[in-house]
């Protein structure tokens, strides 16, 4: 445990190295080759990050080229592009003008101010000439946000370099799942805080959030819609800053914030993962057949822990054909001596796999206040099939991913469009929502033994947590 806890600062260096290295090649979209400039100095991690950034840049260039090839109407009205659905000629055309008017009249001005973490916040920093990648998305999905690469040169000047780099990594999905994004965001905020100096005549508690923190958050949100966990963490950080007395010395306040962030990472991320893996491993018994979907870090950790404790069980990994992360999980488990079945897609598993399994264990990206699980697209199919077959479904999720305000019963209210696997004809949603009734238990890190909660009751945990603070 101690090593785990100490391990937390490590990624900080990693990010910073990534940060510095990937800010360099980022302008590569315009100017061709910064790579050979100083090749001998780069460490492995830096090289990796660099390659990633370059790859992303290439991808973006390709996309740009493709986009400019399509005969979409140009610069003047990027929002109309979004609603037009350029390649659906017949039906869309009929109602086009009226619906558009309705939309612009009713929706745009009357739209309630959304929280920054989710929902269709339009990029405000996009330059006029940019192609809108949302051109092909039909109007009825126009509320669903999408990650977007923003050239670093066009970002707000107040954005810290570490955050700039992180934004790029989020937009290109090299920092991907909700907890990784949360963690790297907090580590980047650490750097922001460290380099912060209160301007003369201001106080930290008044100045920091609106003038320093908010631009970072806005930028990150534009790169990719915030995860629920990021929203929760930002709320806590802001609450902390607001609590400072106006006369609190800057050093003291900064120290307190840094400490808070460190504790936060320790308790809500590092320790939480340990405890959840522990609780989930306890649910696995000898002879179990565990069905899981794609790769989720908590599930992997739980399965490996159970295996290392000498439990004998089999794992059936069902994968997402569009993004085969489950393959890696299957390999890892096999190397640990677990018998693994692998299905490259959901087809057929409904009939056979779900009935054969004794437990379904899935990881979640977030959980809504009503207990619905926000997970990788396809999770819901599996859970419903499992519930139908009477196989219990175990969902693993840290409490920081719980949303205390919003409820969701469908997969379209909150979601994200996959920016990488879309075409003019089709696009892909990244998540889906599994109703609480299909979940048998939600395993959380709360108070170890008592942290296994019915999905309907997760609010009780949040309430308790707030009482304890």
């Amino acid at each position, binding site marked *: 445990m101690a090593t785990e806890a100490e391990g937390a600062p490590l990624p900080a260096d990693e990010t910073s190295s990534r940060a510095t290295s990937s800010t360099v090649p980022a302008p590569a979209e315009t100017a061709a080759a910064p790579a050979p400039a100083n090749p001998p100095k780069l460490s492995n991690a830096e090289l990796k990050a660099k390659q990633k950034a370059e790859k992303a840049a290439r991808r973006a260039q390709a996309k740009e080229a493709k986009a400019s090839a399509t005969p979409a109407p140009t610069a003047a009205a990027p929002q109309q592009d979004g609603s037009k659905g350029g390649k659906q000629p017949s039906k869309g055309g009929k109602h086009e003008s009226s619906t558009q008017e309705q939309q612009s009249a009713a929706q745009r001005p009357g739209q309630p101010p959304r929280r920054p973490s989710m929902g269709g916040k339009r990029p405000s920093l996009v330059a006029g000439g940019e192609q809108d990648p949302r051109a092909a998305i039909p109007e009825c999905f126009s509320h669903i946000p999408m990650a977007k690469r923003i050239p670093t040169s066009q970002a707000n000047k107040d954005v810290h370099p570490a955050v700039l780099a992180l934004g790029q990594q989020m937009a290109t999905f090299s920092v991907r799942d909700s907890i990784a994004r949360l963690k790297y965001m907090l580590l980047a905020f650490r750097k922001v805080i460290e380099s912060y100096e209160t301007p003369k005549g201001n106080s930290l508690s008044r100045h920091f959030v609106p003038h320093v923190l908010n631009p970072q958050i806005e930028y990150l949100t534009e790169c990719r819609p915030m995860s629920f966990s990021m929203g929760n963490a930002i709320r806590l950080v802001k609450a902390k800053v607001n609590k400072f007395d106006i006369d609190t010395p800057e050093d003291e306040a900064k120290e307190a914030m840094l400490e808070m962030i460190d504790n936060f990472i320790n308790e809500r991320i590092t320790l939480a993962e340990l405890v959840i893996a522990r609780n989930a491993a306890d*649910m696995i018994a000898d002879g179990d057949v565990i069905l899981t979907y794609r790769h989720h870090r908590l599930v992997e950790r739980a399965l490996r822990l159970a295996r290392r404790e000498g439990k004998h069980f089999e794992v059936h990994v069902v994968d997402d054909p569009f993004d085969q992360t489950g393959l890696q999980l299957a390999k890892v488990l096999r190397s640990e001596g677990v018998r693994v079945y692998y299905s490259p897609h959901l087809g057929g598993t409904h009939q056979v796999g779900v009935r054969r399994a004794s*437990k379904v264990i899935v990881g979640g990206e977030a959980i809504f206040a009503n207990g619905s699980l926000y997970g990788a697209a396809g999770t819901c199919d599996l859970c419903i099939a499992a519930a139908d077959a009477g196989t219990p479904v175990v969902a693993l999720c840290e409490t920081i991913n719980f949303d205390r305000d919003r409820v969701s019963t469908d997969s379209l209210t909150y979601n994200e469009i996959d920016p990488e696997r879309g075409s003019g004809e089709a696009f892909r949603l990244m998540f889906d929502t599994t109703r609480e009734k299909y979940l048998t238990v939600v395993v959380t890190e709360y108070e170890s033994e*008592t942290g296994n909660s019915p999905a309907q009751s997760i609010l009780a945990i949040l309430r308790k947590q707030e009482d304890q603070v």
Partner: protein
Amino acid sequence: MATDDIAGSQDQRSEPLTIRTTTASAQPPSPLPQDASSSSSSSSSSSSGNFDIVATYTSLLASDPDISMPVAAIEALIALLGATPATTAMETVSVIKTHAAILRSAVPNPIPLEAGTDLFQQYLLRSLKGQTAGGPALGFDETREHLLANSRLFADRAKAAREQIARRGARYVRDGSVVLAAGGSRTVKTLLLRAADAHVARWGCARFKVVYVMDGSRDCVPAVAALRAKGVPVAEIPEAAMAYSLAAARVDMAFVGTEVVVQNGGLLSRMGTFQLATLCKSLGVPFYVAAETHKIVRVYPLSQADLPRCGVRQDVLQFKTGQDLEEEAPEKNPLSVAGEKVEDPLSLEGQKGKAAPVDYTPPELVSSIITEQGVKMPAAVYDLLLDIYT
């Protein structure tokens, strides 16, 4: 004056607590105050090493027909506390913990016990913490005395809960209702008697009918007799007639008791509860559970197949071929459950000899749980649990 051999010295006055629990029955509150004072004076030199927690628990269950398993476990632990010479808080806690574990391991289905032992340990820890937070002025003996007094209050409260549940639940039984009750739950019996009283007070007679499922537990017969004595028309049916009766008698609601309520609001109870709940669900009959909050336990079964992981040791399903039977010793009954644990008469609330098998009723099948703290949806059980344990 204190003795080392507590369990053996049944008539020694120095340890009246042990004597009460092992020999005499009935009123737990009255003998205890003197225990608290006398044992605190003699505690320093007596030993808990020989305290037989299992025997204490067994005799408690055997002696008091109104006591339930969690409460018996709690009372056994209180007896232990009274007999423990531990001089520090931590020592006391660890003694209690060890004996709770001994007690649990002695029965085939330790979960009902666990509800009691967990609750008591939690209570003990809280009291100790509260005491230490209050200031170092209190000596350990005083703390312990305080605990003994409070523990007794706790056990009393647990018993009083049944009355409160009866009062709340009785309101559900309205004019013309047909109620199905199953098994030997004393809580349900009390509830129905209370309903009969209310009807008699209002209309001069009981204006509801009861369909009573006779599942073979020893408390069924007296319950039926008591209801009939109050003028309630009761139909006795075998378990196999449950579905028929639910439909034919147009049952309005079903009441059951339970051994424990698990973390998600489901039940772990006598075999057949799940069956009845499933029938009620499919026939649209509300399924109410009468349970004291001390029956809530920190166990989370995922399915019937998951029960062994939760600590239930039973062997209901034994697949055998003709050859298997021939190979087996002829005296062994293939339908027996939980082995031949004849030495555990305490682990069941009905039959003699073998541990009564249990099944798991998932929370979806439970309409409401009537507790002394109010009528709760199954999902609210987790809230209650968090209130108790965190």
